[in-house]
């Protein structure tokens, strides 16, 4: 292919990149404008005098509280998911029992089902045990619904671990618990970190469970919290933009530093389908 051909391809790829990113750049620009600038001047104009006070205004709502809730719920659910998924994957791939294949299918089918179909019964079950409007319901739902995807990412790694590891450990009189927690689990650190990052993105962005199970403002996470906040500020674009930027910056920072892990996690969560 000639130089001209390649140039055309580059222009095409660059246009796609602009389409993917420009709405976010535009969001950042209007987060630094006031209404007279937003409504009076071209939406593509750079902010003349950046209004950082929009961010102060956004933070004065309960964004700080929602931010804190998102962090602790996300972290707690990740810890539970990764430990339970690692234990289950270990039992399925490394231990010998008849039903392991069937149990694996049970987990993998969990990837296909529409979450919404389970929503009404989940709501009534949580209502029955008094967990509606309790963040515990969110933590255990996140943990459960992320188990299949987490196990899917872990599986490949566990299958490739050499059998000799267990043999040597068992001959040395090592118990299953020591074998798992002190030998196997540390070996899976690379793939575990991938699952941590994928879980982080999922939990941070989750909306429908919190929207359904949580009523009190004090337990809301960022997604639901900003949705309500924006409802009150319909016409004041600057603080809305600032709020949205605040909510997406953590994920963008994560992506900036761990983009390879994110790419790895997203591809391995889909390849086997």
């Amino acid at each position, binding site marked *: 292919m000639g130089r001209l051909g390649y140039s055309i391809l580059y222009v095409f790829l660059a246009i796609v990149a602009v389409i993917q990113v420009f709405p976010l750049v535009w969001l950042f620009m209007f987060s630094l404008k006031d209404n007279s600038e937003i409504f009076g001047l071209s*939406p593509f104009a750079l902010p003349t005098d950046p209004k950082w006070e929009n961010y102060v205004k956004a933070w004065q709502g309960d964004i700080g509280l929602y931010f804190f809730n998102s962090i602790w719920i996300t972290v707690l659910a990740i810890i539970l998911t990764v430990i339970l998924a690692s234990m289950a994957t270990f039992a399925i791939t490394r231990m010998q029992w008849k039903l392991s294949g069937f149990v694996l299918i049970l987990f993998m089918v969990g990837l*296909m089902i529409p979450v919404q*179909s389970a929503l009404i019964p989940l709501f009534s*079950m949580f209502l029955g045990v008094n967990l509606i409007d309790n963040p515990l319901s969110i933590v*255990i739902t996140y943990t459960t*619904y992320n188990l299949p995807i987490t196990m899917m990412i872990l599986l490949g790694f566990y299958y490739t671990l050499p059998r000799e590891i267990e043999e040597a450990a068992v001959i040395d009189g090592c118990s299953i618990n020591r074998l798992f927690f002190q030998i196997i689990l540390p070996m899976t650190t690379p793939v575990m970190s991938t699952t941590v990052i994928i879980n982080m993105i999922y939990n941070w962005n989750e*909306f429908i469970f919190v929207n359904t199970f949580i009523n009190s403002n004090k337990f809301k996470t960022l*997604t639901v919290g900003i949705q309500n906040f924006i409802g009150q500020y319909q016409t004041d674009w600057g603080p809305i933009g600032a709020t949205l930027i605040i909510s997406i910056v953590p994920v963008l920072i994560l992506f900036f530093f761990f983009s390879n892990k994110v790419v790895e996690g997203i591809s391995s969560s889909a*390849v086997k389908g």
Partner: protein
Amino acid sequence: MKKVMSNKLMIALYILPALLLIGVLIYVPLVLTGYYGLMKWDGIGDMTFIGLENYMEAIKDEDFWSSASHSFLLAVFSTLSLAIYLIISLILASKIKGSDILRKIYLIPMLLSSVAIAQLWIKVYNPINGMLNSLLMTLGVDNPPAWLAEPDIVLYAIFIPILWQYAGFYILIYYAALKNIPETLIEAARIDGATAWQIAYKIKLPLIMGVVKVTIVLAIVGSLKYFDLIFVMTGGGPNGASEVMASYMYKLAFASYDFGYGSAIGFLLLVITLIVTVIIQKLTESKDELQY
């Protein structure tokens, strides 16, 4: 060795916590949703068994069928858009400098919450000050539409951010599959005088067909159960014009407190998704899977 690794108690200890969670919080609710569908129930008070009445009602319910048709339309658009993603990936994987950074840039929208994407695109589509209409007016379009308020347009207007959100995901998967093709195969074809187009169409495409099939299933199933972005952007409106199956179910249960009928719709959503999954997998199953 064998004895230790097949210790029943230890196996139970390792598998049961996770298994109990998915059993109680995924499988039990899926069965219950079918069961609640047989009830008249407001979610709080007593249930009354009414047999298949809710399901019969659903079959006659025009709002349900219109929401289902919107879900299927999204599935069609998502599947067709895969062709564009495939073309982009083919270009990206053909010795382009900076392909690594480009595919990461494409992935960015996929990392954002549906709430953030929805709120951003509400602003993009704002009739007067939105990015889109400002651009159109600069280009000389006099009366650009109020995208999210027009019943004939709203559904397509919502499809755009959904496709925008997932583009990077599919490009990533195709790119990875294309990079897995041994370089020697491509070289051999090139030496035999094959053009870039022939290499793409006759060699690369057949070799990644397995992955393409997986993405077709993902796109269709994902579309049928799609919910978040539509719920936040329009809530299914105006007047049901952008309602999909999942948002219709949600509205019935959590806005109209018709938990019985909502559950029936939720169960139909499950059944439809499963049937369609099986059908596509049968359709795309080929006897002579290519190997390399």
